[in-house]
């Protein structure tokens, strides 16, 4: 029974990883929009690079998601 409780606490703590990835993505997109505003000609390239960055930032939350099912 105690082990189950510890597992549940661990699963709950994994939710914290969402905070980090959310913060990172918000910062990244905000900076990208700033850059696009400064230099609209480069918007296309900045957008694709932003998408790659967002996917990379999101992966930390997804590592936690994979862990969620392993615990």
């Amino acid at each position, binding site marked *: 029974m105690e082990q189950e409780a510890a597992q549940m606490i661990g699963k709950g703590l994994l939710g914290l990883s969402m905070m980090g990835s959310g913060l990172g993505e918000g910062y990244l997109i905000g900076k990208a929009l700033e850059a696009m505003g400064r230099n609209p000609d480069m918007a296309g390239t900045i957008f*694709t690079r932003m998408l*790659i960055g967002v*996917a990379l930032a*999101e*992966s930390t939350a*997804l*590592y936690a*998601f*994979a862990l969620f099912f392993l615990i």
Partner: protein
Amino acid sequence: MNFFTDILQVQREIPGIEPQILFEVFGIPVATSSFMIFFIILLFLVVGIIIRTTFTVYPTKFQVLFEELYGAMKDLVDEVTNDIRRSEAIFPMIGTIFLYLLVANIITLVPGLADITVNGNAIFATPTADFNTTLGLALGAVIIINIISVKEWGILAHLGKFIKIKPVVLGFKKSMGDGAMALVDMFVGVLDIVGEIAKIISLSIRLFANMYAGNILMIILMGAFAYVVPAIWYGMSLFVGALQAMVFSTLVAAYYMLAIKPSSEESETSPEEKKITTASVGTTDASVAEAA
């Protein structure tokens, strides 16, 4: 009440993280993911033969689609490598990985395919939602990049990237401080071996977790309310599938750029620069001679 929940919700089991075994061939278990891998290879073969045989100078709509796709992939690789010769060398690999992942990630979104089952297991499961597939892909990509590095630098120089003994000897010959710095560099170089393994893990888990999370969220949404809401997630899944294929192939291209000699552009430009400098020196000499 029960009637409404039956109509409004589609209950399905959440699949585990382990691969689902379809059937066994001579004692070797065949998982759904490996079945799908061969299915996609067959699909590519058929499409390739069709394109090859119906290739015309005045393109049909079907051909234009693939020409556009080729152009988009080429631009993607060019953007990373910044060198046409380099991108031509690596394009077959990056393009294959991209196309394969694109099809593999979004093929199960075709309505109805997920409901075809054998022995209670769905045949058409997303192959990249199985960790074995993504681990295999990432491992293959990193091994090929290491082989390219060996071809480019030679086996000793390639090993020298990780075990930096030569700079230590050279540094200590130069001065004590340089030697100490080179010694620190050597330990950092050993850490690069861990970095190479981390590449494999991060590449494979990123793709796997994205696809697995997509599948599970879809099942949860269908269980909660089977109308309108899953449609939005369908669109999101299409987007995420294409994006992850792009991220995987772009990262492999970036690792390729790290593995090869960075001096390719310099070696091209340096003779010209020398010519320019010698020419300018010549002209200054001439002008000085004229002035004299």
